[in-house]
């Protein structure tokens, strides 16, 4: 796996926390899940869409910067490895991409921050809930294949929040 160089890239600049020049913050599962719950309850599908688009946009600009900075990482495979490393090292969980093409893809996640957090706070749910990860994947694909924001749609077909064995994501253009 192509790792991010954490010792070098996770830095403080005054009170700011930076990951390779991207301003980041640490938040716990309480806050992340509270936000999700609030969006779903008050806005329904519109709230889910907002969560997806917010993750997509943040992921898009983050990976644009990473791949620019890590210019030596050129192949699609190595970029995906870097992205998965970022996901894991940011405490977001584990992602495996089983199929990656410019017009479609398939990914699974056996562990996730949002799944762990949701189950801890609310228990099982009846609908898929990994809206953050869907958006995160969409933003990544748009950078990988040089497409604008909003190009890809990511659907979750199985979710550990529903007590499925793993989360499964289908990516389509």
């Amino acid at each position, binding site marked *: 796996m192509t790792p991010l160089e954490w010792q070098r890239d996770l830095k403080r600049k005054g009170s700011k926390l930076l990951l390779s020049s991207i301003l980041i913050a640490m938040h716990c599962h309480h806050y992340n899940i509270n*936000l999700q719950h*609030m969006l779903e309850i008050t806005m329904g599908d519109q709230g889910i869409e*907002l969560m997806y688009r*917010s993750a997509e946009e943040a992921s898009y600009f983050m990976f644009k910067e990473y791949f620019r900075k890590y210019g030596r990482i050129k192949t699609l495979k190595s970029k995906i490895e870097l992205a998965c490393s970022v996901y894991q*090292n940011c405490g977001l969980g584990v992602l495996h991409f089983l199929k990656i093409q410019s017009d479609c893809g398939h990914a699974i996640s056996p562990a996730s*921050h949002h799944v762990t957090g949701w189950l801890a706070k609310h228990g099982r749910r009846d609908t898929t809930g990994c809206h953050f990860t869907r958006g995160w994947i969409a933003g990544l694909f748009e950078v990988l294949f040089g497409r604008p924001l909003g190009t890809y749609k990511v659907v979750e077909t199985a979710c550990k929040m529903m007590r499925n064995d793993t989360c499964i994501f289908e990516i389509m253009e």
Partner: protein
Amino acid sequence: MAIDGQKIIHAVMEGSRYRDAKGIIPLFGVYLSLFSVRYYNKLSFEFETTIKDTNPYNAETLLTDAAQECGYATFHGIRNSREWEEIVLPMIEKPEDQLEGFVAVAVAFGWGDLQIVELVPNERLVVRANESYEATGYLESYGFSNSSKCYMLRGVCGAFMDLIYGEAYPEGCFTFSAIEEKCRAKGDKFCEFVVKKSFKKKSFF
């Protein structure tokens, strides 16, 4: 003995490099994640704009309450954690010192450069922040505002007082509430949060 915030910051930074096989970061009694502040700001500010005219819930209250409930649970977990016991507890001489420990952890989390300006035990807390990512993000995306925009920090400041002076966990949440009297998003030089006893105890959460 004064609280050494740098020790806490170091512990958080080192701790965050521990990743178990599931890519989950269990630290300070919670599960931590690191992500771009762009995500949180877009989420909060578009939520506020979208429901402003169409929903009976008040966005400002919902966002602040989400943060206060989170802050209450998180910092309760933090002060009961092994890391707190090892690093912070030796520095605490009186209950109010916990506040400095909480603020140091919040700074370590990248939420802004928080400073305690005033504390009247069990009555009033004033916290100032010069680099709140919420205010910075709002200014960059929307320009100046007529109202304060640091909902997360506002809720967290309320939670700090809940934990120190409220009833025993979990009953103390929302004993206090905060108002952001100054905000860089409004053109003020810094963001300032004033926390007092609350008249409400109920929340969406």
